Each structure stands twice: as structure tokens, then as C-alpha cells.
């Protein structure tokens, strides 16, 4: 079309326009990034051929010939969506040229197919990268200092040192070793007795037995589980607040992790359970034990979903992928969400292959008991609920009956109100007439308020008051007649509601309803009781007016339906939606036939209707009635399209009214007469308790018996069974690539399967359900070169203070290279040989001479390798906040060693549980945790930042927590060491630091505790000198840092 053989004059002119006005601009401003010659083509867009413009890039076609306003190119030039060229906006005249050119059809002589921009990743080359190579057990290197190594780990470490001209530090002392090992494995300090026993054990296996003892401790899992919880970004809530339901059983995942470490669950199973415990073959009771493992994903962040739910859902998938890949693979696959990973061999398609697995899964709360128990519980619950509701309903149902039973008294109340017009006490008048004074008071208020405005009560405004106040004087006939008429009016309205009006009574009722007033009006309709049934006698009426008012509080969310609106004739029922209306007036939009005002299904109180009228307050629909109409029936109510709109929907309220003549009372905002007298809040309203007392004796007895039965059942009823927050399979389906991460712009299909760099160029697609089972098998596989490496590196990291790869969750191009690549491979293979036993790995590492080095610096070491990358000494480490807090509690003698169960609040005074049991919030992290570098649980974390700031020290010197520990510690010293100051100080050092004090330390301590407080010191100080001394020890660097 664009390349005609014989260019017309018009086309010729356009070609000229292109050559003079368009092409030079493209060449000058765009080709650098958008042509075949570009070093790196941006956004997948080529502008150097006609086809390139039409095909477009990641954001779709650049131009739509003939439609400049729909052309992305123009948006970009106008700096609307993109801002192109990035160096500066082009002059308006140039943009107009482009608009003109596109409007004229975008004539473009640059033939040739659009070059393909996509650079495909060469997986073959990519797999040469060190971390994608399968780990091989390397030859153990020769070392010069053959006396030092205790095993192969040490030979690798020493060889690297020797290569750098470094030598190992001396061995740590036994005192240092037991402290280091106990904190490393349990996160707690050794007790003085444990230290003594170890020092006394002179056997060559003393340390190995110590390690074995520590690995048997149930506190081991609390320490090592917590490291994993950082990776799992474990939390029980969400960062935002809108419509969040807390994961109240989230702690079951924490307890599962602790237990998994304690029972030394092999690492491959540890991983598989967290991905697919629900799908792996295992016995039912075992499944119930392992199911909480799925909290790894089931407790993931959930984001705010309202207007842009698609993006929020995509963001949640991103969390799952990020946590999966960084946690188990040490890869930052999230980078491939918007485009192929810029550094690692992960195409965007692979990202969506994984995303498809999680979009095929769903969040689920799973029972941790056999199905029979669940059913027993549910049945009991249902039964309780039914009974409870039945009791309520029985009482509430009797409400109208009780209230309406007052009808015969209406006339007497009205006469009594008249008596009160000349003063007198309500109580006295009520008593004299044998009436309820509360009801009488309400009748009096009703008439006072409405006799001027409400046509049905207007007569009462003109009745003269009695000459004098009297409870007994005779009532004039006019008053008696007016009272009787209103009573009759109400009686007929009641009959109309019940559908028992005779023809004569219907005529009589219409006589009583003043012209232009509603024949029927609903009460105020709200979300709680969103519907009212209508069944009205219309015999003889010529018009039907359907009115919805906003009930006086504004129109917001007042979506109202006249559902199943129909006329009853002798021939049968005629849906109103088949009749043509005479007129409609509505504040908002139009009235919709058989649809709600927003065009959706009519739906009131959860029930859908096929026929009816959808409207919005305030509206007025008028019909001319055909001959022979007898009745009008409908369900009037608030539509879900309004009531589901959050707070606005909760507050929506309307009133429905039906007229047979043009309304004159639309200014009335109060409810109809019937509701005002007999309604739940009407004149005869009684509360539930009163109501029950007004019931017949037999009914009251029945109720009592039912309540007792309910109470008995409640007590016998099984407690709620345990649950876990997990993921389960949903509807399995592949996703399409979201081009540039935009859910609205979908590209090629991404079959659910594993990452190609790890699984081969054409990995098999996952066919079973979501594919999680196959994913688990692929990840936790010896064939996966990253699986073992990533975990041994994490274990190494926690024992030595940094990983052999110092970016434990990034083994990709931008990650760090291992300092000891052969050692890492050796450990990876060794881990597999040890049956993926984490405890066995601890033994390997802790029994090495490398780990048992002293932390002392040497000048030579500092000169060559100040960072200690080559491990010529042990790193001195700061205790993490959990160990530090637990140690404070342990030393002060207050640590509560109870394990597991629901989370505790660290801010609670007297919370002495281990820190691993603290509630971890994504919304607002506990102050102490936050201060001391606990990671943000919104994202997976594999290393903690370690900051030293004065705010931390404010906590140390001033917080009630520290002062409490100081008091308790001082009290413990007194009770365990008695009155001798020296003995107390020695005990203090043994407890706090695992050693006895030196002479100078002892002297400093004695001087401090024995000094007298001056008046200046005493003033405002409630801690005694021992307590202040105790605080100093707890606040010290030695307490916080581990050699």
C-alpha cells in the first residue's frame, strides 16, 4: 500500500515531506538508540525502517498511521508517557510535523524488514560461568605448614593463606572456644558450670564432645532456624493496613523451621517441603507435620488491591520468585521481570515460566489435623451457630408481632397525648389510662414533630388543646374520631403489608392516604437489611410513580434496584421492564433495564435478579398503567454495586416510595408512618430483653431451655483445630510475558518450567498441577549446580562472619566471586556426601583449625589482608540482636526457655522468652529489633547490616529493659555469691563473659561498688551501686562482641 509503483503527486509530496521533515529528525535524535547500528537498542524499538515503526518495541507499535493521537511516538515526543528524546524535548513545530505525517498515513520509503532486536542469550556460553558449572571435588592442595591443618578444609584455607604470604593465627583458648561454640550453635552464653566442665576435660575429644552436646540441645534449632527466617522474610502481618487479615497461625511456620533444624531434616527435604509439602508423596500424618513448611510462600507479602489489582498481583508473584530464587538458588531472577536480565542468563520468559507456577497456586489456610477432626469441628460449629441464630431469630421474629399487638391501643395513646397538651406528667397520664409511659412519650414526640408536616397527622395540628390539665376530663368527640381514624389507617396499612386487604379496604385506604402522598414507603434501607418486599393493591389507579430518595444523607453509593418489579393483572404478571415508562428523572446516569445502574447484574443482599430496574438515588420513574392492573409487586433494595464500595457502601441509605399520583411529599425525609409506629425503632419499639419479657410464658420457657442446650454444647465442643498458612494448587495455567513488566501488555507464552540456564535449552514443561512438585525436584537436585553451594556458603557465613561468597543470595555476575572457589566446591560435594545433614556440616566446620583460630590481629596480617578475606584469624563478630537479648536474659537469670507457640510481644514488660519467639511485623518492626539491625521482613535477607549508632546506646543506657536486666543481674549475684563483694564480681564475670576477672578488673569493680553515693549522685537515682555496676557489665563491648 505504501509502495505504489507509480507514485502519485500526492504521495510524491508526502515522500518529500518525510525526507525533509521526518527522516533528518529520526537520524539526528533517535537512531543512536533505535537503529540496527545502535550499540544497544533501547526498548526493543527500531526506528530505521517503516516496518520497525509499525512493529514497534516493548510498548507496542510506535505509530498508528492516520491516527497521531493513538501513536506512542507522539506521546513520547510530547513527554507524556515516555520522554523522548531524553536529552530534551523537541520544538513543538517538529512534533506537529510528526503529527501531520502520521495523520497523512505515515508515508515512509524505508523498505526492508524490521531487524530483530532481541539478542538471544547464548546459554552454552553462559553455563561456563563458575556458579553454573557442576561442583567437582577438587584435589586437596599441598601446604608448607603441614602441622597446622586438622583436615581438608584447613588445607584449602592454609594454601590460600600461604599463597598470599599469610600464616594462621594461634589457636583460641579453651575459654574462648566454648563461648564461641555455644553462641554459634545455640545463640546463648555458656554457663559457668559448662565452662568449668569443658576446661576440666583434657581428653583430645573434649571439643568434639562439646559440639555434639550443643547440637543435641533443643536451643540449637532456635538459633539456626532464625537465620533461615531472615531468608524466608518471615512475618505474621503485612506492611499496609487496608483490608489485611493477619496470619494468626504464622508462628507454625517458625516452629516448623526450628524443629526442622533440631531434627536435622536433610537439606534437600527441607527445601522440597517448603516448595511442595502438599504435593510430595508422604503418609498423611507426616504431611500434617510438614505442611507448615509451605509458609515460606504462604506467609509472603500481600499487597493493596483496589484500582490496580493486576499490578499488585504481579508484585506478589515477584515476591514469590525473588524469595524462591535468592533463597534457594542465589540468583536474582527478579531482574528479569521487565526485560531479559542484564547480567545473568535469565530471559524474561524464564521469569514468567516461574511466575506461572505461582499464579497457578493460591494462598490457603490448611488444617493440621485429619479431615475427620475438621469435619467434627465444622459440624459442631454449624450446630452452635444454628442454635444461636435460632434463638436470636425466635426473639427478633416476635418483634413485629409484639409491636403490632399494640394496635388496638393506638387510639387510647392518641387521646392521652391530647390530654397532655395542657401540661401534666406523662407518667401520671399513662398510669391513669393504663398505658406504657415510654410508648406514650414517643407518641407525644411523634405528633409534636410531625403534625405540621406529615399529611397523615396534620389533622392533629388543628385540634384545640383541653381547657385545663386533667387526667380524667372527658375527651371531645372530634378527638375521639381523629384517634379512631388514625388507628384505622394504621390497621389498613398493616393489612396492606400483610397482603390481606379486601377490595373495600383498599379503597378506604386510598381515601385515607392524602392525595399526592406515598401509598407505600419503605423504611430507611441500609446495607444490613438491604431489601424490602412490595405487594400493593393498585386497583383503579392510573399512574405508578416509583421514587428512590437518598434518605436525607447524600447520594453516595446509593445504587437502588426495583428488582422483579411487575404488575399483576387478570392475565398474569407483567414485568415492568417490558412496559415503556412515561418519564424518568435521575440524579446520576440513566435507569437501566434488568441491569444495575453500573450495567452489572441486579444483585441485592447476595441474591441476583434477572428482571427489574436499576437506578441510583435520587430518581423518579413514572408509568401510565394499562387497564386492569390489580397489584404491584417488587423487591426494592440496595444493589451490591453500591454497597460493596467500602466505607461509602457501608453508609449508603435510601428510601423507596410508591405513589399513584404525582408526589407532593418528596420533601419529607422521614420514614413512612407504619415504620414510625411499628418499626424496630418506632413508637412501640422494645429492646430484645423487654421483647422477651413480653412474650407468652411458654415461649419464654422454650427460649431458656434452648439457651441452656447451647451453653452445654459450647462447653463440650472441640477447640479450633490447628491450621497453617500455606500455598495450594489453584487453576494451573501458563502465563504470558508481561512486556516491560506491564500486565496490560502481554507477549509470548512462558511455559511453566525451570530456568533454562540450569535445566538445558528446552527443559520439560511442568504438567502436574501448578508444577511446584517438579520445581521442588529440579531445585533440590544434585544436578542443580547452585543447590548445595548456596547452602554450604550460608552455613560458612554464620560460622565465620562472612560467606566464601560474600553475597550469599547472588551467585550471578554481579555477585562476589568466592574467595576460596575450590573449598566451596569441596564443601558442596561434601554436603551431598553427608546426606545433606546440616548438623554434620557444623561438625566439619567447627572442628577445623581455621574456625578455632584466635581473633587477634597481627601486624603482618593487617598489612596484607586487612579484610581477612583469607581467614588468617577468626573474625570478631557482634552478637546479633537475638543472641544479645537472649544473653542478657540468660545472664540476669530471667530467661524463659519455653519453646514454640504463638508469638510474643517484645515490648511487653516481663517478656523473657527467647527473641526468636517475638512477633515480627512488616508493618512496624519492634523498636529493639529495628535499632539493632534486624532485617525488614518485607524482603528476603541473607546478610544483616551492622550499624553502630548512638540511638542503640540510648537503649543500652536508658531503656527499661536494660534497667530491669541490671536489677535482676545484681539480685542474682547477691543471692548466688552472698555478701562478699569480690565473690560477687567473680561470679558476675563468669556469668557475663565466661571467665574470671583480671586483677585490675576486680579492683575497678570493688572500687565502684564500695564507693558511697554523694548527695548529687543519689538525687534522682533509684538503682543502687551494684545494680549500676551490673548495667555496666551488660552494656560492655565484651558482652556484645564475640572473639
Amino acid at each position, binding site marked *: 500500500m505504501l509502495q505504489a509503483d507509480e507514485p502519485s503527486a500526492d504521495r510524491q509530496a508526502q515522500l518529500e515531506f518525510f525526507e525533509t521533515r521526518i527522516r533528518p529528525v529520526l537520524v539526528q535524535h533517535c537512531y543512536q538508540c533505535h537503529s540496527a547500528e545502535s550499540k544497544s537498542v533501547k526498548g526493543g524499538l527500531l526506528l530505521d525502517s517503516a516496518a520497525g515503526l509499525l512493529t514497534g518495541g516493548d510498548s507496542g507499535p510506535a505509530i498508528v498511521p492516520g491516527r497521531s493521537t493513538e501513536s506512542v511516538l507522539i506521546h513520547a515526543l510530547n513527554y507524556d508517557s515516555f520522554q523522548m528524546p531524553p536529552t530534551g524535548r523537541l520544538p513543538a513545530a517538529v512534533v506537529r510535523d510528526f503529527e501531520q505525517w502520521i495523520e497523512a498515513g505515515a508515508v515512509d520509503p524505508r523498505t526492508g524488514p524490521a531487524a530483530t532486536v532481541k539478542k538471544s542469550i547464548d546459554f552454552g556460553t553462559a553455563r561456563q560461568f563458575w556458579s553454573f558449572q557442576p561442583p567437582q571435588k577438587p584435589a586437596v592442595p599441598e601446604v608448607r605448614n603441614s602441622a597446622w591443618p586438622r583436615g581438608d578444609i584447613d588445607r584449602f584455607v592454609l594454601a590460600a593463606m600461604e599463597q598470599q604470604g599469610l600464616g594462621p593465627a594461634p589457636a583460641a583458648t579453651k575459654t574462648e572456644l566454648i563461648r564461641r561454640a555455644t553462641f554459634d550453635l545455640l545463640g546463648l552464653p555458656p554457663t559457668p558450670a559448662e565452662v568449668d566442665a569443658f576446661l576440666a576435660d583434657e581428653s583430645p575429644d573434649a571439643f568434639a564432645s562439646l559440639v555434639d552436646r550443643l547440637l543435641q540441645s533443643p536451643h540449637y534449632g532456635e538459633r539456626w532456624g532464625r537465620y533461615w527466617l531472615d531468608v524466608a522474610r518471615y512475618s505474621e502481618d503485612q506492611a499496609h493496613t487496608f483490608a489485611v487479615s493477619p496470619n494468626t497461625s504464622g508462628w507454625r511456620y517458625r516452629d516448623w523451621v526450628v524443629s526442622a533444624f533440631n531434627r536435622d531434616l536433610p537439606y534437600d527435604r527441607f527445601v522440597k517441603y517448603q516448595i511442595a509439602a502438599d504435593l510430595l508423596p508422604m503418609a498423611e500424618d507426616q504431611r500434617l507435620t510438614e505442611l507448615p513448611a509451605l509458609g515460606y510462600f504462604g506467609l509472603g507479602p500481600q499487597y493493596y488491591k483496589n484500582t490496580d489489582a493486576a499490578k499488585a498481583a504481579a508484585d506478589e508473584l515477584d515476591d514469590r520468585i525473588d524469595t524462591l530464587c535468592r533463597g534457594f538458588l542465589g540468583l536474582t531472577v527478579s531482574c528479569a521481570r521487565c526485560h531479559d536480565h542484564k547480567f545473568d542468563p535469565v530471559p524474561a520468559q524464564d521469569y514468567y515460566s516461574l511466575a506461572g507456577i505461582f499464579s497457578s497456586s493460591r494462598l490457603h489456610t490448611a488444617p493440621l489435623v485429619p479431615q475427620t477432626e475438621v469435619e467434627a469441628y465444622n459440624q459442631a460449629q454449624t450446630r452452635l451457630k444454628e442454635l444461636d441464630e435460632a434463638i436470636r431469630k425466635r426473639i427478633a421474629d416476635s418483634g413485629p408481632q409484639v409491636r403490632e399487638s399494640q394496635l388496638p391501643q393506638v387510639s387510647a395513646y392518641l387521646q392521652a397525648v391530647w390530654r397532655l397538651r395542657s401540661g401534666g406528667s406523662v407518667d401520671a397520664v399513662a398510669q391513669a389510662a393504663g398505658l406504657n409511659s415510654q410508648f406514650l412519650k414517643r407518641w407525644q414526640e411523634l405528633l409534636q414533630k410531625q403534625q405540621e408536616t406529615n399529611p397523615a397527622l396534620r389533622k392533629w395540628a388543628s385540634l384545640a388543646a383541653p381547657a385545663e390539665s386533667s387526667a380524667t376530663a372527658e375527651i371531645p368527640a372530634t378527638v375521639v374520631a381523629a384517634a379512631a381514624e388514625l388507628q384505622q389507617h394504621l390497621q389498613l396499612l398493616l393489612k396492606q403489608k400483610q397482603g390481606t386487604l379486601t377490595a373495600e379496604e383498599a379503597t378506604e385506604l386510598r381515601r385515607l392516604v392524602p392525595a399526592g402522598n406515598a401509598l407505600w414507603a419503605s423504611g430507611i434501607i441500609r446495607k444490613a437489611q438491604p431489601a424490602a418486599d412490595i405487594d400493593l393493591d393498585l386497583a383503579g389507579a392510573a399512574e405508578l410513580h416509583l421514587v428512590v430518595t437518598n434518605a436525607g444523607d447524600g447520594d453516595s453509593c446509593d445504587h437502588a434496584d426495583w428488582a422483579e418489579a411487575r404488575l399483576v393483572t387478570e392475565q398474569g404478571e407483567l414485568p415492568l421492564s417490558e412496559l415503556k415508562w412515561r418519564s424518568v428523572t435521575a440524579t446520576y446516569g440513566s435507569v437501566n433495564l434488568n441491569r444495575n445502574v453500573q450495567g452489572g447484574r441486579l444483585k441485592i443482599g447476595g441474591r441476583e435478579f434477572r428482571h427489574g430496574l436499576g437506578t441510583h438515588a435520587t430518581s423518579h420513574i413514572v408509568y401510565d398503567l394499562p387497564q386492569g392492573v390489580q397489584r404491584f409487586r417488587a423487591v426494592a433494595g440496595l444493589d451490591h454495586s453500591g454497597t460493596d464500595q467500602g466505607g461509602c457502601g457501608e453508609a449508603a441509605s435510601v428510601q423507596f416510595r410508591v405513589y399513584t399520583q404525582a408526589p407532593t411529599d418528596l420533601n419529607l425525609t422521614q420514614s413512612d408512618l407504619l415504620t414510625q409506629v411499628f418499626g424496630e425503632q418506632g413508637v412501640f419499639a422494645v429492646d430484645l430483653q423487654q421483647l422477651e419479657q413480653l412474650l407468652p410464658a411458654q415461649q419464654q420457657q422454650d427460649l431458656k431451655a434452648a439457651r441452656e442446650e447451647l451453653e452445654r454444647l459450647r462447653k463440650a465442643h472441640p477447640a479450633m483445630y490447628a491450621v497453617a498458612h500455606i500455598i495450594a494448587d489453584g487453576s494451573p495455567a501458563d502465563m504470558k510475558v508481561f512486556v516491560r513488566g506491564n500486565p496490560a501488555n502481554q507477549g509470548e507464552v512462558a511455559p511453566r518450567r525451570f530456568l533454562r540456564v540450569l535445566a538445558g535449552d528446552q527443559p520439560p514443561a511442568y504438567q502436574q498441577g501448578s508444577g511446584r512438585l517438579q520445581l521442588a525436584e529440579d531445585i533440590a537436585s544434585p544436578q542443580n549446580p547452585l543447590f548445595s553451594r548456596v547452602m554450604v556458603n550460608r552455613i560458612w557465613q554464620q560460622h565465620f562472619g562472612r560467606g566464601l561468597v560474600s553475597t550469599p543470595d547472588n551467585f*550471578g555476575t554481579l555477585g562476589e566471586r568466592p574467595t576460596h572457589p575450590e573449598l566451596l566446591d569441596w564443601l558442596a560435594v561434601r554436603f551431598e556426601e553427608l546426606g545433606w545433614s546440616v548438623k554434620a556440616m557444623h561438625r566439619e566446620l567447627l572442628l577445623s583449625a581455621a574456625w578455632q583460630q584466635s581473633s587477634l590481629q597481627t601486624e603482618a596480617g593487617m598489612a596484607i589482608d586487612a579484610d581477612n578475606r583469607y581467614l588468617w584469624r577468626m573474625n570478631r563478630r557482634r552478637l546479633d540482636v537475638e543472641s544479645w537479648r537472649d544473653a542478657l536474659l540468660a545472664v540476669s537469670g530471667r530467661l524463659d526457655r519455653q519453646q514454640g507457640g504463638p508469638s510474643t510481644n517484645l515490648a511487653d514488660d516481663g517478656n523473657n522468652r527467647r527473641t526468636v519467639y517475638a512477633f515480627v511485623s512488616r508493618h512496624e518492626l519492634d523498636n529493639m529489633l529495628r535499632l539493632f539491625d534486624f532485617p525488614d521482613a518485607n524482603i528476603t535477607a541473607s546478610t544483616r547490616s551492622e550499624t553502630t549508632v548512638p540511638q542503640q546506646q540510648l537503649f543500652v543506657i536508658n531503656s527499661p529493659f536494660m534497667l530491669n536486666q541490671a536489677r535482676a543481674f545484681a539480685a542474682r549475684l547477691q543471692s548466688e555469691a552472698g555478701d562478699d563483694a569480690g565473690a560477687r564480681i567473680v561470679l558476675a564475670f563468669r556469668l557475663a563473659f565466661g571467665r574470671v576477672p583480671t586483677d585490675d*578488673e576486680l579492683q575497678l569493680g570493688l572500687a565502684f561498688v564500695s564507693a558511697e553515693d554523694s548527695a548529687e549522685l543519689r538525687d534522682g537515682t533509684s538503682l543502687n551501686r551494684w545494680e*549500676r555496676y551490673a548495667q555496666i557489665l551488660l552494656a560492655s563491648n565484651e558482652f556484645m562482641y564475640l572473639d
Partner: protein
Amino acid sequence: MNTIQAQLAGLAAGYSRRDLLQRFGTGLGALGLAGLLAPQCAAGAESAGGPLSPKQPMFPARAKRVIHLFMNGGPSQVDTFDPKPALDKYHGQRPSGADLKTERRTGGLLKSPFKFSKHGQSGLEISEIFPQLGTCADDLCVIRSMHTNIPNHEPSLLMMTSGETQPTRPSMGSWLLYGLGTENQNLPGFVVLCPGKPVVGPALWGNRFLPGIYQGAQINNSNINPQTVIRDINNGQVSRSAQREQLDLLKRMNELHLSRRGGQDNPLEARIQSLEMAFRMQTEAQEVFDLAQESKTTIDAYGGGEFAKGCLAARRLVERGVRMVQVFYGNGQPWDDHENIPAHADKARAVDQPIAALIRDLKERGLLEDTLILWGGEFGRTPVSEGSNGRDHNNHGFSVWLAGGGVKGGMAYGATDEFGFAAQENKVHVHDLHATMLHLMGIDHEKLTYRYSGRDFRLTDVHGRVVSDILA
């Protein structure tokens, strides 16, 4: 002690210069790392080390500190700073542009219940609900062409504070602390004043993947008691002199401990310093929140109420070198007038005098020229009505204003359409606003990066453009 080493120690004990270079990537370049590694003397003895110590900007800064007056809930532009006479003319009608997607159902155009008039030499048009602010018109740079992504509070609050609609990114205050540190080591560098919690809550001043020390410190300004306003700033059980005695012994013991470890260890030394800093911090931090130290004239100028106290505290904080102060209008989402736009007048009354006083006060003290004030909500409101008298959320167009450090005064930049639905001319996205604010602080928004999860993250993600037209 060696200052360079101490600073390093403070940031990441156990990490060396080489580690830091790798951790923070080349993106930090001249800024963050140079600041981390170069000795700083600006704050005298207090600056000895620490990740919060002041750092040089990338290029000369026009502003040194930020005060963000956050009108949470979303003030309506057409009733405040973006007059639309067409609304009076077409009141009740529903033009085609009204079909832009917002949160809820809307009706016809709703004229503003308020009158606009011109103020100052510039003739900037401001609604009558801000009479005092009108007198500061020549200092204000109103951006009338703001837009953001989503018409719901939570995502938009997060976008305004962190440049992302989910709670996954550090807040602007955290980025500023990370990039520039703070000038007063005895005070938190990023302070958030709110009488309780706004919607979303702490994620609005969160640090996310940046170190925890960069998180905003929330201060409840409903009742500012200097003794309790900062957690653990006071020790009710040990007097100051008794505490001094404790710290003297602690220091002796820590030094003994250090000397037995060769006398050199960065983290150990840093903590010894840090304890001393904390001791001194107690005095200064209590002093700054003692608003009673102000003269009666000043207190009267700001007027009464929580927001006024917040503004006064903000001035005292920035005066002492705090990098960023955010003052929330109130708890929840108070400007969210879905049902009743005239209620905007009540809220305006609560902020008009304090803000005008703040601008004048900063000016008199010579602080306005390098303090950047941002006023605005998370989005605007629809020119069409919700219910009979309210307005729905509107992300397509809204107004904010800047004042002070490096922006043109008496200016209205950009424009919405005839009715005020959507930004049309010189559109400014929140990312652009962030880029511009960072620019004024001497930071290239594309170069202030933090490597996390394999990517170099920025406040502006992959967006943002400096709005150079509004730079003075």
C-alpha cells in the same frame, strides 16, 4: 582515632573499603562513598564517624534540608491552587473527560464553594481558604500539573514517599540520609511528625533494604513532651551524674578490653565513641523539642493546634541540621472529603497560619534559601462531584507547591485541562518531583543508587526528569 576507619566501622563493621565499594556499587560514585571515606569536619567533634555523618553532595546544593508538609488524604486542586472558572459555568454537567477512571462513581461538574483571588506581585491565584498563605504567594512555586498512578490512598501515599506503590522501597527521607547523612549527629536525621498514624503507617518513612538507621524517627506531635518524645532519651532511674560515673567505668573497661585485643579494632572503637555520643545526645534531643523555649511572639505567630506545633518543631529541627522533616496533617486520611468539599475550609484553617508563619520564620532566620518546603497530598480530587457535595480521588491531575531552597517563587507551573481533571501542560509525575527535589539537594537522581538483589535501585526507579523550568 582514625576518622576514616571509624566511619567505616560505623556503617558496616566487618566491611572494608573494598567491600563497601562492591556493596554500594559504582553508582554511589562521588557521593555516598566519597562521603563515607572522606574525613568530615562540618559538625566538629560530633562528626567522628558513623554512617549518618554529613557527606558532600554531587554538585553544589541549592537546598540542604527538606520540610514536607503532607496533606494526607488528598486536597482538591480546584478548591486550593488550581482555579477553574469553567466549573462555575458548566456546574452540574458531565463533560466527556469525566470518564477518567477514579476510585468511585462521580456525577456532574461541581463548582468550587471557594473564591480565588490574585496575591502578591506575581498575582498567583490562591483560594480564599488560605488567606495567610496568600501573603506568601511570591515565595510559592505551585505545580498544577502533577499526576500519579493510582486513585487509592495507600499506593499513592507510598508513591509520594517512596516512588513505588507497594511497600518495598526506601522512603525519600531514607535516601537523603543515605546520600547526604545529616548535619547534627545528636539528633535523628529524618524526623516524621504525626499525631498518631497516617494510613499505611510506618512504611511511609521506612528504610526497606537500606540499613535501619536510615528509617524516619516518628514523633507524636499531639503532645510534645521533651522528656519522652524520643524513646529512651531519658533515664528516670539513674541521675545524669550517676550515669556519667557509670559511663566512665564502662569506658575504662571497654578500653581494657580493646587493649587486650591489640588496641585496634574499628567496631570496638566505634562503639566506645557511640556511647559517649549517646550521653550527649540526651541533652540536645530534649532541648530541640522544648517548644516553650520559643518567644511568645513566635508561638503566637504559629498559632494553636497539633499542626502548628509540628511546624514549629520542624523549624527547630531543620535549624539544628536535621536533613528531612515530614509533618503529616493528621491521622488517617483527613483531607479525604468524599462527601463534603466545604470541609476543606476547616482543614485549611488549621494549616494556613502555621505554614505562613513557618515560611516567614525561616526567611527571617535566613534558612528559607536553603530549606526546601513541599506542600501537598498523595493525589488530588475530581472536578466532578461524588454524592451531592464531595469529590472523588484523582490521580490524573493535582497540585503541590514548593518553596524555598532553589525554586522560583510566585510561579504556577504546568496546567490541568479546562476543568482540572488531568494534567495536560508540562506534566510532572511524582518521579519528576522526586528527581527535582534530589537535584535541588545536590544529587543526581540517576546516580544515587543502592545495590540490592542484583540491581542498583534508585528513588526514581527507572523514571524521573528534573523539572528545570522551576529552578531559580
